[in-house]
């Protein structure tokens, strides 16, 4: 079973502060993704990466940066957190090789509250 670990699981931040959400996967997947989930909006893609050193903008990248320093790690950075970024964030990994067809494996999620 694919393993994706997110940290922290819960985070309370102040408006204007910097927040870093971390994600680690041990499956050697090439692709990694950051989503946020809000009631009524489903899963919305923020940033994604198809390998170490690459980051791509998703559908709602404004206010977020991403970093993929290695195959295993993918971080989401909120330089200046705002209350509108209060949400549940999911990291996922996947790979189109080996017949997996880019099946996504999700981490447990990070609940972020920006006050």
């Amino acid at each position, binding site marked *: 079973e694919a393993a994706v670990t997110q940290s922290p699981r819960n985070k309370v931040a102040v408006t204007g502060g910097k927040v870093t959400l971390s994600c680690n996967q041990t499956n050697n997947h090439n692709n990694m993704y950051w989503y946020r989930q809000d009631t009524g909006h*489903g*899963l919305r*893609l923020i940033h994604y990466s198809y390998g170490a050193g690459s980051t*791509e903008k*998703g559908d709602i990248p404004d206010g977020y940066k991403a970093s993929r320093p290695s195959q295993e790690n993918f971080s989401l950075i909120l330089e200046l957190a705002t209350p509108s970024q209060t949400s549940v964030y*999911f990291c996922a990994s996947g790979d*189109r090789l080996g017949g997996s*067809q880019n099946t*996504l*494996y999700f981490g447990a999620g990070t609940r972020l509250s920006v006050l």
Partner: protein
Amino acid sequence: GDSVTQTEGLVTLTEGLPVMLNCTYQTIYSNPFLFWYVQHLNESPRLLLKSFTDNKRTEHQGFHATLHKSSSSFHLQKSSAQLSDSALYYCALSDPPGGNYKPTFGKGTSLVVHP
């Protein structure tokens, strides 16, 4: 770009009745990968079933779906709903190798099964 449209909002069923959640898609590719993910309360999404073969029924945990490329559909069905089926369901599409790296998700369907 790709798009996925699924039964939106809330579906409420009585235990024992059949389940059908609709999913249709649009893509330029003739061989996309289609997925259903399920997310139970306070959990992360996980794969329920997937397919890329036209007109072949795929089954898992009592649910089934058949990819019909002629109608661009991948509806999720179950013959008899159980209380434990109450969850959020996402239909998703992934391009074949050579296509886009980011999967496309529908907005999700919340299924509530009551006694």
